């Protein structure tokens, strides 16, 4: 039996890079679904598959944590980051699911705008997670995530306000879209939270 004196920490990096790719891809597909509603070329099942894939990657991270004495960063940081990235995909999946669940007849421009921000944010998160080994470009990605979260916040507030501008908007429209706007906002926030967790790791280890 060979003793692993040098721990296989590269696997952690690979898993986080894969989780970042999955989150970005899920956001990209959700954006297509929102833009092309009510007859999107992408079924929700494909977003769901990515969510399952994301869960698997996160499970692998925890398995590695449980079987390795030496980890590239603090254990609690690794588990916090794994959960944060998992949250992104979960919220994206939730928003995408609402399109079918609420039988949405047509998109709203504000939701398409939120999706655009979500895709950009998840791309930045992918970039940050892919650079954990070298920390190269991580700071820019984190700053960009913060900016995108602010932008998402503004869009979401304006989107919700648009539902209440006229007394006579259908209550169904309000219920449907308020939930969707909030779900997309949670997904954007989750990207920023994950970025923040990456930031903590950089501060401790750079």
């Amino acid at each position: 039996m060979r003793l692993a004196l040098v721990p296989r920490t590269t696997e952690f990096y690979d898993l986080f890079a894969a989780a970042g790719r999955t989150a970005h891809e899920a956001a990209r597909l959700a954006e297509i679904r929102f833009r092309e509603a009510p007859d999107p070329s992408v079924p929700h099942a494909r977003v769901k598959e990515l969510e399952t894939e994301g869960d698997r990657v996160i499970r692998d991270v925890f398995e590695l944590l449980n079987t390795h004495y030496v980890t590239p960063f603090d254990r609690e940081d690794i588990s916090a980051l794994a959960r944060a990235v998992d949250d992104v995909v979960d919220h994206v999946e939730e928003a995408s699911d609402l399109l079918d669940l609420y039988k949405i007849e047509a998109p709203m421009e504000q939701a398409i705008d939120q999706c655009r921000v979500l895709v950009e944010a998840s791309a930045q998160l992918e970039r940050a997670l892919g650079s954990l080994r070298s920390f190269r470009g991580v700071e820019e990605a984190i700053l960009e995530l913060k900016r995108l979260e602010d932008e998402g916040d503004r869009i979401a507030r304006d989107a919700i306000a648009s539902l209440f501008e006229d007394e006579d908007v259908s209550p169904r429209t309000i219920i449907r879209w308020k939930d969707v706007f909030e779900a997309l906002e949670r997904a954007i926030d989750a990207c920023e939270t994950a970025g923040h967790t990456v930031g903590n790791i950089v501060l401790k280890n750079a």
Partner: protein
Amino acid sequence: MRILLLAGADEPATSLLAETLREAGHAVQLAAAPGAAELAARTGRVDAAVFDAGGAVALTELRRRLPGVPLAAWLREREDDRVAELLAAGADEVLHRGMGVREQVARIGALAERAPRQQGAVSLGGLRVDRERGEASWHGRRLGLTQRERDVLLELAAAGGETVRREALYRSVWGYAMARGDRSVDVNVKRLRDKLAAEVGAPLRIETEPGVGYRLVVAAAAVTAL
């Protein structure tokens, strides 16, 4: 409910009525002449119209211009003969000065409530859209449309080629105010346009007025063919 109020000679009474109707939760549109009434009805569904029976607008003229819309006549003074005359001529309700404003609003509200939600059928050139029967046809040939698409087509046809604003189209077809950013009208118009292009082609098409709305264009040849 959407109430169309035709301003008569008695401005203060009209504006008081308009105010009270709005307080009761109705959307009120004010118009000054039969032509304006027609235009107002075209830009959205009207559930009832009130007109000054002492003014220049004739009941028969309004009936013709607002088919299917219940009409309430308003009199400056209650005169037994005149009330009977108006009812006989087809007014659905007669209101008069001296009647409490709340009673007037309740009567108009009840009238609007009883009204059929939308005009029954519209023909334009070779196009016929019949809401009751759930059918749309082009020169007698049935078009395969969903109910939503049919309703949109009916509203565009009822406007007779005039541009219908997105918000008005939404109001008429969905029955609610359109939330800013809602693409429901555009999505349904796009589907309808694609279907018309496939089933009818150039003689019947929907044009976009950018930033405003849509209008139905029936080719001249198709109109004269009837």
